[in-house]
């Protein structure tokens, strides 16, 4: 909210404090200043001048040469094309070396051979509008009609364009601060000054309005109080400058005196006001009720709105005339020929106003105040202030009496004054008097051991709220800091360490960590070739997404990885080796939370990567994580993968993960024209199966014996099968089997392949003899023959 410093100073005398100092102080006492702006700060060297003479330009038909008085000995000569000036007019002149509102610099110079010592200015060139100066014109020089303006006067001073606007961030717990008076109260306490409040004095004409209007609240929970007052013989016109100036500084456009009064009171008191034309209040009857479904109203912004049964409205005998707390109806609004008006000052339920405003997509100055919860005790003072302003502006005759329906529940909030608790809580040592002093300033009263907060402070409910009030004026930064006591131990859990090990291993293996969005588009499932009716298509759906691309929670991390791979590929990065520990979100029952699974996903492309590089990474990782009892099998049914280059990892029959070359169709869907390898591993399952207790295995004392085996077998026989046979046959002395060649080609019969292993054997207790080794190897050869693998001759 913008605050006019000029207006503020009417309530609290803070002298000529700089805006920066003011902002700093208010920020530190709890009213955050976002910034400030001095009106007309950019304008330089623009003064009021009085036109002395106007003559034709000797060489230009459309120009005139004027002599103007700027309060100095010598007049200025100004050449102008403007035609709306006459001798004796006061207007702004930008002198040599001046700056206009848009930053334009003006220098003296010759116009068609005649010296011009500056330039006359229009309204826009000063940075103000016709709303601020309704008597001015758009296309022409601003002829000033301000009282007291004199030649040579700084233009900002002459037209009152020199206020300072301070922008506050008002938090939702402080509806009272959405007003000049509220911020003045904070200012007064912050600077230790007196708050000078004024009680409105209304002059009425001795005629009652009681028979002209009736007010009835039908839903007291949504409208605790409704007050109205009538003004007759209204003269609609322009507001005086001081009022327009204040509205402008607060960011509100002046319209006419009556509308301006309602806005003025809202800004000053924080109490939204409305004015109806009494002619359009059927039967002089105001009912505050819920709308009936099917009812319609055209609001002041000209839009017809269909009302729902949840919308509180102000209705006359027949129809709604305003949406309560949000916006008035066009039909019953103030017009140029309005003569009798009803001022409304009411209190509405915050949630109700908020929901209605949201439903109709119309957050107004009024609704944004109401929705935070306003003080019903503010209704009558605000109403009186509006009528006082009518008196001041001579805008009409105020009738006697206030028509009121008061349904407010007057139960006083009481908070125990536990000053010892507060001192302990804040770690302060304030005396009860010091606390009382602060609380009195925020207008709390006391009842024995209880504090009674003012009704405009709905946020004060608990002793912790009181502690906050105390400490913000005592000073957050005055409280001496202490360290936490007690020797708590912080540490990573086993699972957190496990995840760290995964990350560190992937990093060591050359993969970089990425972070991707958890939400995707349902279309991404098509891109990874997921079949139409696949279970994983059932995703957690966001009911109010930003867009389709972020509309569902992924059930598989693959599309996210593919997006990033594609981005890198399209950015012409020659390679990318990436991983992420990513969540997958699997829906359960509708009213239960989905399952969040943790997956390790890796994606790679580039010259140095192939299936076995990727597989090597998986093997290294599983070894590092102490997971050894896993199985691996070829799979041709993983929809995103090349059917001949894909492996599925399992552990005790549970799916551990998948590894493979991305299906060329899938790569194509991402515009990737190279081979992409990915693997996905279930982190939760890995954690379940890790051998946590590592024990040292002694370094062998006796030498190993190695034997090489070159075998011919069917081309379809997996190497893993051969290895398993060898491993079973060799038994306990087997140290490891190393595959060193796989060959198919000329020398090998069609349908067969040559597979060569180096088998290393070792005994723990003695040097292995040749006979022992040969015996084991022969056993292996025999077993291999049984599955059709024979020694290559």
């Amino acid at each position: 909210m913008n605050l006019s410093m000029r207006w503020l100073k009417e309530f609290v005398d803070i002298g000529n404090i700089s805006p920066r100092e003011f902002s700093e102080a208010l920020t530190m006492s709890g009213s955050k200043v976002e910034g400030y702006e001095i009106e007309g700060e950019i304008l330089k060297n623009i003064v009021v001048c009085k036109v002395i003479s106007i003559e034709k330009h000797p060489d230009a038909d459309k120009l005139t040469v004027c002599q103007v008085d700027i309060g100095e000995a010598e007049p200025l000569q100004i050449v102008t094309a403007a035609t709306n000036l006459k001798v004796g007019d006061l207007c702004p002149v930008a002198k040599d070396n001046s700056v206009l509102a848009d930053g334009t610099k003006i220098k003296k110079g010759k116009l068609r051979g005649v010296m011009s010592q500056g330039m006359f200015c229009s309204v826009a060139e000063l940075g103000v509008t016709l709303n601020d100066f309704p008597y001015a014109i758009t296309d022409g020089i601003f002829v000033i009609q301000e009282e007291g303006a004199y030649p040579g006067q700084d233009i900002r001073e002459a037209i009152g364009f020199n206020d300072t606007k301070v922008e506050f961030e008002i938090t939702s717990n402080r509806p009272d601060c959405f007003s000049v008076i509220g911020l003045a109260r904070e200012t007064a306490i912050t600077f230790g000054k007196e708050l000078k409040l004024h009680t409105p004095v209304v002059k009425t004409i001795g005629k009652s309005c009681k028979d002209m209007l009736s007010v009835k609240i039908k839903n007291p929970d949504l409208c605790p109080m409704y007050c109205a007052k009538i003004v007759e013989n209204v003269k609609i016109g322009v507001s005086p400058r001081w009022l327009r100036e204040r509205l402008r500084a607060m960011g509100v456009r002046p319209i006419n005196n009556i509308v301006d009064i309602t806005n003025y009171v809202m800004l000053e008191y924080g109490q939204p006001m409305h004015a109806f034309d009494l002619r359009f209040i059927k039967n002089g009857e105001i009912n505050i009720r819920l709308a009936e479904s099917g009812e319609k109203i055209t609001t002041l912004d000209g839009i017809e709105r269909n009302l729902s049964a949840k919308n509180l409205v102000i209705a006359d005998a027949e129809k709604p005339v305003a949406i309560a707390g949000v916006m008035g109806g066009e039909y019953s609004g103030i017009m140029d020929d309005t003569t009798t008006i009803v001022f409304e000052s009411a209190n509405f339920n915050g949630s109700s106003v908020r929901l209605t405003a949201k439903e109709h997509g119309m957050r107004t100055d009024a609704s944004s105040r109401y929705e935070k919860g306003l003080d019903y005790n503010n209704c009558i003072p605000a109403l009186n202030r509006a009528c006082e302003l009518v008196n001041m502006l001579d805008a009409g005759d105020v009738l006697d009496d206030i028509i009121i329906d008061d349904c407010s529940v007057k139960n006083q909030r009481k908070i125990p004054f536990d000053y010892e608790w507060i001192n302990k809580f804040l770690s302060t040592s304030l005396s009860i008097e010091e606390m009382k002093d602060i609380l009195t300033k925020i207008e709390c009263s006391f009842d024995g051991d209880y504090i009674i907060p003012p009704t405009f402070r709905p946020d004060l409910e608990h002793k912790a709220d009181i502690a906050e009030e105390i400490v913000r004026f005592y000073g957050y930064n005055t409280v001496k800091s202490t360290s936490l006591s007690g020797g708590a131990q912080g540490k990573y859990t086993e699972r957190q360490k496990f995840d760290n090990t995964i990350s560190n291993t992937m990093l060591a293996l050359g993969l970089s960590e990425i972070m991707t969005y958890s939400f995707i588009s349902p279309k991404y499932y098509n891109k990874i070739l997921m079949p139409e009716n696949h279970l994983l298509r059932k995703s957690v759906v966001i009911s109010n997404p930003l867009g389709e691309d972020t509309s569902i929670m992924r059930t598989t991390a693959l599309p996210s990885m593919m997006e990033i791979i594609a981005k890198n590929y399209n950015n012409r990065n020659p390679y990318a080796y990436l991983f992420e520990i990513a969540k997958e979100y699997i829906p359960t029952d509708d009213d239960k939370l989905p399952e969040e699974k943790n997956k390790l996903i890796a994606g790679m492309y580039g010259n140095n990567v192939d299936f076995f590089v990727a597989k090597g990474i998986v093997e290294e990782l599983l070894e590092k994580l102490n997971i050894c009892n896993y199985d691996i099998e070829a799979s041709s049914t993983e929809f995103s993968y090349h059917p001949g280059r894909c492996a599925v990892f399992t552990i005790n029959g549970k799916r551990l993960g998948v590894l493979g070359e991305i299906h060329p169709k899938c790569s194509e869907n991402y515009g990737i024209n190279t081979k992409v390898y990915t693997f996905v591993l279930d982190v939760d399952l890995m954690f379940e199966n890790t051998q946590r207790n590592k024990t040292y295995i002694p370094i062998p004392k006796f030498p190993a014996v190695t034997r090489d085996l070159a075998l011919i077998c069917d081309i379809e026989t997996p190497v893993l099968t051969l290895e398993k046979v060898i491993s079973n046959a060799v038994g306990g002395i087997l140290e490891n089997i190393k595959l060193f060649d796989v060959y198919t080609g000329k020398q090998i019969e069609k349908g067969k392949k040559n597979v060569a292993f180096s088998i290393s054997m070792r005994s723990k207790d003695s040097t292995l003899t040749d006979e022992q080794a040969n015996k084991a190897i022969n056993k292996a050869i025999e077993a291999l023959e049984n599955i059709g693998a024979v020694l290559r001759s």
Partner: protein
Amino acid sequence: MKEQLENIRKAALNALNELNIQQDLENLRVKVLGKKGELTAILKQMGTLSAEERPVIGQLANEVRTTIEKAIEEKQAELKAKETERKLQEEKIDVTLPGKRHILGYKHPLSIVLDEIKEIFIGMGFNIVDGPEIEYDYYNFEALNIPKNHPARDTQDTFYITENILLRTQTSPVQVRVMEKQKPPIRIISPGRVYRSDAIDATHSPLFHQIEGLVVDEGITFADLKGTLETFIKRLYGENSVIRFRPHHFPFTEPSAEVDVQCFSCKGEGCRLCKGEGWIEILGCGMVHPKVLSNCGIDPEKYSGFALGLGLERVAMRRYNIDDLRLFYENDVRFLSQF
């Protein structure tokens, strides 16, 4: 014979002097000392000598052999030294050629900063707790003193799944879950992904990371909150950081504060980085609202606590001078490999 021996010695030593190649040296050894060599040939004739001459000539022959052997050995060493020298010369390389690089994996900058923050808190006795990203409205809002239709809900535009299930807008629900399960003392941080329906631009993202902290125990004070955060900020931003606590409002804490550090760039004078304010807001915090404690089954008369929350992206952006938040989620390797 004596003369012959002298000649052999002379000839061999002369030949050695001339000699420069390893193979020639080997040849010379065979020629002179070998089984069929000159010296052996002479010795074979020893039988023809008289008994008086034999020891004299024998001694001379040994002397000659020793001399030649020694000379060959010396030559051998000399040649080897020369050879080594030559090889070293030959093996000279241009050390300014670029090194052969390994491909390293790079940790994501957000992880680097998060790890640092975790370590700081672990050092102060905090544990790290995770929780679901898809949450019940109750844990994300209601338990935190933000009932339905509370205006504070407007400031956190929420993605809903159903009326009661949403994408968490903060990691505070983790704190509620911890308080429900664990009796004080509690000292935790909960880092993680949070979601708000902000359109993607240079400073906004519908998904970002938060780190929230919670301490609950008997006798926790506002001064403890200040002290803990001062320590944290000084570890993160340096011992010389100037910090201020500024009153603010959050529904789940009372009193609430925002914490600013003095602008690193202008030292409080006001510059473009700090938008002229001289201070940069870095986190929100406050004393846990008594209602939140009671909601979680903790007696606010007995216990008190504080909570804090900060955005990870903003810390990382400031740390590395990154001006566009989208870079974190685009994951271009040219970006990743800078950290």
